[in-house]
């Protein structure tokens, strides 16, 4: 039940926003819990945005993982 799905904010009217879950599924959600603007990706849980997603962090996470895997030697060699 703690499932939350990323969606893109297409328009905002007060606490309500129209979001796109991808595949052209549009749904009205409540954004009272976040400070979001049109174009942001938000995590949506049971009709409420619970957090704004950070695209830069997502990109950096993947880069970081690749770097860790590339540079790190096996643990036995490292110690």
């Amino acid at each position, binding site marked *: *039940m*703690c499932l939350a799905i990323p969606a893109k904010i297409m328009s905002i009217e007060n606490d309500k926003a129209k979001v796109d879950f991808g595949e052209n599924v549009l749904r009205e959600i409540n954004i*009272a819990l976040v400070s979001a603007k049109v174009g942001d990706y938000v995590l949506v849980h049971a009709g*409420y945005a*619970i957090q704004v997603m*950070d695209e830069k962090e997502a990109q950096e996470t993947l880069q970081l993982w690749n770097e860790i895997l590339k540079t790190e030697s096996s643990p036995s060699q490292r110690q």
Partner: protein
Amino acid sequence: MTEKLRFRDPKLAKRVAEKIRQLVPKQETVKICHVCGTHEWTIMHHGLRSLLPKNLKVIAGPGCPVCIVPASEIDETVQLALKGVTVTCFGDLLRVPGSKMSLLAAKTQGADVRIVYSISDAVSMAKNEPKKDFVFFAVGFETTAPSTAVEVLNRPPENLRFLISHRLIPPAMKLLVEMEDLNLNGFIAPGHASTIIGLRPYEIFPKRYGMPVVVAGFEPLDVLFALYMILKQLKEGEPRLENEYVRAVHWEGNVKAQESMQKVFNVADGNWRGLGSIPKSKLTLRRKYGDYDAHSEYAIRVAEGVDLQPGCQCHLVVIGKIMPSECPLFMKECTPQKPVGACMVSSEGTCRIWTKTINRKRQP
């Protein structure tokens, strides 16, 4: 954003799995617990356990909010429904067994029980039908509780009341870590609950118990990397709190949501199905919003509920002491069509998740 594809790269997954294999000590069993049904779904759906060494056990803790609602709270809601109050709830609550009957059984007896996608649907229904009395059965962890708080703060119509059954995850993690025979070596903390509460509530685990905690997202690479991060901490002998899900979880969490929750809820001791009372783990409505409290307004008296039907092992499944397949009822007397225990009902329940994967394996 093609988040799914990027965080499901099989080549990268294999490389992380190799790192994991290198980090797990050959002669020891390492037990890492997650506390979120969605993590279990990710692990089962993507077959992640098959990538891990046999002596690395990844177990599912009490991370399904529907599974841990005690029978007494189902009983109270069933009685309200049978009394003529319209009960609204999320769909996966409908078939959760009460002591004698589920909400679905009450519905078949003519009670007005309605599934909603969101609490805002319940508010709209109450507005559209002002002569009917409505109750929203508010179940869920920290991920869900803020939406209840928002609607209470918005002062919904007076014909809508709330049965607050929200629970908090860190107190349940404390229960697990203090269980001497569970022997946990680390926690994967739930990403979405953590978007709300942030990282601070988990600080106690490395500090007091020497237990690594990594907050993780829900794609396969998120879970594998969280395991890798925990194993690395264990190897280095430096248990700490880390955040793998940086794209959604911030140290301070969602402050707006926390403030809304603090305005609306008190924290109390609460029963968890099959686990008994956990200190400071349940939310209740503050007196200021007492008019909205269905529990006090209707004052339904229910006896201590029957949490476990005969033979049901849900109390052991929700703390990861046994795997679903070790329960004698699993896929025999207890099936998704006719669940005996709560873990077989919700799509977040460990037993229910396991049936999906088993069914898929059986297909040619």
